[in-house]
């Protein structure tokens, strides 16, 4: 199967290196000029990120070596003590574990929802344009509004929709308390967060799907490939570069989701929905242990970077040709 024409990242960069232009003489100086121009073009972005991410990150690393408790107070240097505390704290690792469940749950649910929605919306049928616009609705809603939505919908004591509906359908006799056990609280939060994010992934996948040349499918159909085979051998490989970036960024983004959990359960019941970001926030602003929270976030960031490197190493699309 020839997919060299795939207009996707990765391959494009390769294409640029593999198909050098017929440079005239003076190649070296031209290359140098091109490099300088390249740095010039990316400079605004890089400087922006250095100022707003790297600098605060450095400030956090500094903070993590002190013993500051409350914002605004001074601390003294205590070396790696905070790191030792964090790394030997069972509660921190439990929170990291919950974050693992959180990203896994979100990844599975959002992948299923987004894939099925994108595959349907990629087809042409009456009303598809309206459907493509409607599907985006829950992504454009601010978290605070999403929280209002779901607190209202899941209410069991006056108002609400889900509980009266379940009762009318005879699925349950008594209203369900969606946040009253650790398991169901985590599940409900994952559903709510997925509700908020899957439309965006749907659109990205939809875009990638529509870029797959339709003659590939036609050829495969003539060869007698089934729908499942076409999905497995055409769609998935063609989507791989997109899935790679969405998988990487989606995982990092959903790991760091904080507000929706905080506003709905505050990490409870007990600490069953206390993921790493929730614990960091609580440690900094509720337990007033700012430096320990800084150490926690540095450790967390390192774990995420390690994850990203492993992900890049093993999931990056291979060179195609």
């Amino acid at each position, binding site marked *: 199967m020839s997919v060299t024409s795939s207009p996707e990242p990765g391959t494009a960069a390769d294409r640029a290196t593999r198909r050098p232009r017929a440079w005239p003489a003076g190649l070296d100086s031209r290359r140098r000029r091109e490099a300088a121009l390249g740095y010039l073009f990316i400079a605004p972005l890089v400087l922006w990120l250095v100022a707003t991410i790297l600098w605060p990150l450095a400030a956090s690393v500094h903070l993590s070596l002190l013993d500051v408790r*409350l914002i605004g*107070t001074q601390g003294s240097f205590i070396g790696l003590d905070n790191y030792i505390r964090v790394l030997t704290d069972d509660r921190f690792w439990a929170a990291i574990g919950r974050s693992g469940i959180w990203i896994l749950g979100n990844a599975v649910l959002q992948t299923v929802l987004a894939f099925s929605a994108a595959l349907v919306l990629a087809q042409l049928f009456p009303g598809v344009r309206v459907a493509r616009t409607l599907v985006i609705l829950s992504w454009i809603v601010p978290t605070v509004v999403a929280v209002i939505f779901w607190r209202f919908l899941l209410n069991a*004591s006056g108002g609400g929709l889900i509980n009266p509906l379940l009762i009318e359908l005879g699925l349950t006799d008594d209203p369900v*308390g969606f946040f009253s056990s650790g398991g169901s609280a985590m599940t409900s939060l994952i559903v709510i967060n997925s509700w908020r994010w899957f439309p965006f992934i749907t659109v990205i996948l939809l875009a990638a799907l529509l870029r797959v040349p339709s003659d590939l499918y036609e050829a495969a159909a003539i060869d007698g490939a089934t729908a499942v085979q076409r999905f497995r051998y055409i769609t998935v490989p063609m989507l791989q570069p997109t899935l790679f970036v969405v998988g990487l960024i989606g995982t990092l983004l959903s790991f760091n989701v904080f507000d929706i959990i905080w506003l709905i359960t*505050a990490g*409870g019941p007990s600490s069953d929905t206390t993921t790493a970001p929730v614990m960091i926030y609580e440690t900094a*602003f509720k337990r*007033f242990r700012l430096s320990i929270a800084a150490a926690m976030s540095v450790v967390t960031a390192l774990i995420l970077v390690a994850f990203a490197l492993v992900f890049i190493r093993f999931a990056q699309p291979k060179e195609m040709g």
Partner: protein
Amino acid sequence: MTMTRTSVLAGAATALALTALSAPALAQTELLIWHMEQPPHRVERIQSLLDAFNAANPDITVRQEPQNWGEIYAKAPAAVAAGNAPDLLFAIPDFTPLLKQLGAVQPVDAIVAMLDEAHGFYPAALEPYAYDGHVWAVPLYNMAVSLWYHRPMLEAAGIAPPTTWDALRAAAEALTGDGVYGIGLPANKHLYTDQTTYALMVNNGASALYDADGSIRFDTPETQGALAFYDELAAFSPPDIASWTWGEAEACFASRACAMILQFTVITTFETQTDGTPDQLGVAAIPAAEGVADPGTIAYANGVMLLTDDPAKHDAAAEFLSFLMTPENYGRFLNMEPGLFLPVTETGAEAESFWSDPVAVAYRSQIETMLENSRNGRLFGFTDGNIFPSIAAISAQNLISQATQRVVLGDEDPADAAAEVQEMMEDAIE
């Protein structure tokens, strides 16, 4: 404030000229207030008081910037550290030690003494702000938890308003059924659950959280008893109490799905969201366990802290607060949320401006009961004069509610839950 209206206007008109001609008395003093009474109608009411004050005091301009309780624990310390804190900041008792640690809070002993002489503060309102040799905030209004019930539902079941734990349990059980829950008690990791749990603890003799030496005394038979009783009552509560805040409890009560709840007030909700008449709304003190010597409830005396050491601003703040606490203004201030905020002064409790609000007229007997309950109010960490700044970390993390969650949702033994949370509290104050 002895100026007449005309002299005020004349003063305002010539202020600029006079300032230029060296009249320091008319130099403008600006006061910025942060408060957390963010609902729009409260902001509006406060603004109308500010407008009145500013008009009467041309040399002072008071401005408000409403904030949110959700962020203020992070925002206020950050603002203090960065030097853009307000001059006056509203507080509840366990917020004050936090700002005091930053060295930002000024003693207000003189202002409090002056106001006390004129209006007579209730001692229970002053107590949580008086420690380390000074008073750290001027009490402004009180809120206390009471037991609210639907009178017709109790009457239909032939039940008298409960005053003891046994009666409360029996009532909750008898009222439960047919889509109605006897009593709505929260089990969220939230301040509301802290409050309802502590309300029961107080009525089982477990009101002190600290010993005199600052060590934690949470894991006691009295606390365990309160947790066990809470668990019994929660069996007659709706299934979604794990995500309840105050609002859900009120909604449950207003929709008559809950026959009783523990709450600061339900008056406004009852008035606007039900077709009930005032005489159908019952309110009583929190029932006490048998033989408890000193029953009571949980109460929050809200106050205002002074964060500036500028003497001119200090004077302006004194001027503003005496304006606010004057009976004809104070009632209007309290009634920014009618039927919720209670006076903290003798003159305020009798103020015509307080009782003349239409809501207060219709629900006068309920508000009188609330006021009476508030006099027996206590707050965890602020009892018996044993006050330690570490309480901020205990209340900010809602540790009491976590004990409740363990017992009610996690089916843990009250003794285990109390021991576990005692440990968390010790960790928090370490």
